[in-house]
């Protein structure tokens, strides 16, 4: 991607206006100050923003938005910048609106079981503040020590416990935010529903394209008394995949159900020494939580199902320390893979669980086709795959091969009835594949939804929803219902 040069005349004009409403230190425009914001967690895409604005409260956000609207300057909101799809990639002619300074927990109500927080509050800080009351905030993306609730709202973030506890959209009651012209809008409520259309659901996961979040009310739930985890080994990945369906088919909803293949466990084991079975072709982590009696009953049922499904080994965490060790490996999968390869590319497709074996065989074929390795970690319970393609950006064509590899896997996800992104978002990364997942009229509807909130297209333009022109350039056809164009042709 070619970076856009900064227009310094325009920059001076906008900076001048912003300095009238923000303190000097809250407006950054020198390149040494704006450079740290040039990318989010998807570092393959970089663009230095024209200006970074750091408002400290809602009134300042409102002032910034009004100026940007008047001058027709695009605005890209950013939380902690941990996003993995380039959703917070700045614009060379835009303002990067960092909400990091708005990090107060405004209220924790242990009776109503809700917390009201500002958008820059870190995900884990909510659970920490709720802990004295025996409560916590359930969605736990792997980046939870750093990522912010505002970013979680923008991306509808998940985590390893969403099969049982849901995504951000299931755990946020209310979002207060500002529309593009700076008008205050409240979506949802502190009751369990709100009148009118469910705009809360629409805004959650909208990647900062509909409104800017200034306050979030989340639901807190009682922390389970006990949690225990089963680590099951399988000598075949497909058997492990079938075991996942068997557990769920038996009427059990585990608190977490994760899978890693051997290349992933090997990378992780070297890094965190979690005690993983390195001979297993695949490992399943299967967690139960609840009261002591409940967990005992469920662990026994799950172990039985896993054994019958062909597990070659089963270990049950005997202590909280051991349970955390099992998870430490899974949660460190990305950094662990980062140690064995100069670069890696994390994918995020979702498929119906029953197609797991098929997709893993497809990924193996892609490894040979592109000459790149690809360990797999997988939120097996909800069919969300994270293949990690290993590459070296210093080798001239490896990034390009990686992107083609990833593109083929995402197309395969669509073809088997899944989606190109389960939790990381479309951002800039998967915008081309949107042309395949959705028809021209579906994309047109998305654009009309965007216009319903933001008529001038100033909020994070160019992300998430491709233009028709872009789709034409990409030149790929829309597929749906398992029908690939020319489905009879070999694709690898």
């Amino acid at each position, binding site marked *: 991607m070619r970076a856009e040069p900064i227009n310094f005349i325009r920059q001076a004009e906008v900076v001048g206006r912003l300095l009238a409403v923000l303190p000097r230190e809250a407006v950054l425009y020198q390149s040494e100050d704006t450079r740290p914001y040039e990318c989010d967690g998807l570092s393959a895409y970089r663009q230095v923003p024209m200006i970074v604005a750091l408002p400290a409260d809602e009134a300042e956000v409102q002032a910034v938005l009004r100026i940007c609207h008047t001058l027709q300057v695009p605005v890209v909101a950013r939380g902690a910048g941990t996003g993995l799809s380039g959703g917070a990639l700045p614009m060379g002619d835009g303002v990067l609106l960092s909400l990091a300074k708005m990090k107060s927990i405004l209220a924790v109500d242990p009776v109503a079981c809700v917390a009201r927080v500002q958008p820059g509050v870190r995900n884990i800080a909510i659970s920490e503040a709720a802990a004295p009351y025996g409560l916590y905030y359930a969605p736990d993306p792997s980046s939870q020590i750093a990522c912010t609730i505002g970013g979680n709202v923008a991306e509808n973030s998940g985590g390893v416990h969403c099969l049982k506890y849901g995504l951000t959209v299931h755990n946020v009651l209310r979002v207060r935010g500002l529309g593009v012209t700076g008008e205050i809008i409240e979506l949802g*409520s502190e009751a*369990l529903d709100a009148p009118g259309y469910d705009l809360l*659901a629409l805004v959650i996961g909208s990647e900062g394209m509909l409104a800017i979040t200034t306050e979030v009310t989340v639901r807190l739930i009682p922390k389970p008394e006990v949690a225990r985890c089963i680590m099951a080994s399988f000598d075949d990945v497909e058997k492990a995949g079938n075991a996942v369906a068997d557990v769920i088919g038996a*009427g059990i909803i585990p608190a977490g159900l994760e899978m890693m293949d051997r290349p992933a466990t090997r990378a992780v084991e070297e890094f965190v020494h979690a005690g993983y079975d390195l001979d297993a072709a695949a490992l399943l982590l299967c967690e139960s939580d*609840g009261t002591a009696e409940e967990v005992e009953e469920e662990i026994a049922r799950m172990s039985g199902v896993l054994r019958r499904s062909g597990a070659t080994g089963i270990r049950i965490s005997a202590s909280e320390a051991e349970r955390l060790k099992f998870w430490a490996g899974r949660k460190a999968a990305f950094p662990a893979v980062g140690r064995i390869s100069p670069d890696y590319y994390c994918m995020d497709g979702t498929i119906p669980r029953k197609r797991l074996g098929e997709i893993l065989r497809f990924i193996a074929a892609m490894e040979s086709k592109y000459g790149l390795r690809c360990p797999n970690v997988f939120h097996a319970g*909800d069919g969300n795959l994270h293949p990690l393609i290993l590459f070296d950006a210093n080798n001239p064509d490896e990034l390009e091969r990686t992107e083609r590899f990833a593109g083929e896997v995402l197309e395969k996800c669509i073809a088997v009835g899944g989606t190109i*992104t*389960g939790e990381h978002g479309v951002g800039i990364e998967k915008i081309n594949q949107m042309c395949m997942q959705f028809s021209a009229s579906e994309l047109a509807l998305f654009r009309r939804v965007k216009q319903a909130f933001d008529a001038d297209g100033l909020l994070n333009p160019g992300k998430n929803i491709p233009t028709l022109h872009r789709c034409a350039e990409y030149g790929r056809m829309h597929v749906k219902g398992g029908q690939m164009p020319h489905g009879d042709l070999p694709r690898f």
Partner: protein
Amino acid sequence: MIEVPEQWASAVRAATQSGCPLRIRGGGTKDFYGHNCDGELLDTRAYAGIVDYEPSELVVTARCGTRLAELELVLAASGQMLAFEPPHFGADATVGGMVAAGLSGPRRQAAGALRDYVLGVKILDGNADILAFGGQVMKNVAGYDVSRLMAGSLGTLGIILEVSLKTQPVPVAQATLRFDLPEEKAVALLNRWHGRPLPVSASVWHDGDLSVRLSGAAAAVKAAVASLGGERMDDEQATHLWTSIREHTTPFFRVDVPLWRLSVPSSLPVDAIGLDRHGERLIEWGGALRWVAGHVDGRVLREAVAEVGGHATLFRGLDKTSGVFQALPPALMGIHRNIKSAFDPHGIFNAGRMYPGL
């Protein structure tokens, strides 16, 4: 033979031409809900059937005209259910009508609302285009979440052709406990229990009588029965109770007086908004849903409820001149109008069912 969606697409084009709106209707069991709307009847029961159901995927896909009772039977045969316990309000309730009404039943506080279980939809929009959003997978963040937007939209955004819903296993064990408690104490107790890891799956208070349903693993239900006290209700009687609450067939929900649905923060004290001065009351969802039956001043009630962060719906009532749903602030109403015209540019779907002009 022309497929039903194609016939409906023609009906949409005809309505656009003639300017005569369509009135989308399934079994008509929720005709009482929302404003009356005129227009040519489009009966969704012509497009029925379960398209796909795989219990181990926890997903069922059904056409709009499928009878809700039939869907629930099919799920039950595999030990699964719709966790949000949707009210039917009659034997003819359809899946499409359920989604459009967006109503959830007794399990709502514990399990989530209907919208939380919508994974994907296929709709026919006001341009006569058939569009699909979401899908059959649990996690999907590609594009805006249009599927959930359909939940509770009262058919004003398009014809829901097909919907994919997340299913859940039926809990292994269940027990209902009964307590003699005044309103205030019941609400306080429910809120205290809500903050503890207890398997409470439903609650209802009326006239000094609190009933609480526990659902989950056998051991968890047994332990909760032992620790919460109260009087255990006979299972058959309990099933009848929860069905009658869900279906509004208890004497409280009699039809001769207006019924108000108040959605409020669960911990709201009983006397906070002068609720105790209004009509007869029935409380569900741990305090978050309060029904009021009686001739109350809607304007006063709505102002009071808005003050505490809630909203009031005239759920059943003959005189709807003061509006069925709580009025929206101007900025939100503006977005609603824009959304409506994004889906239905000619204003032909269930015109005015939710708000005048929408």
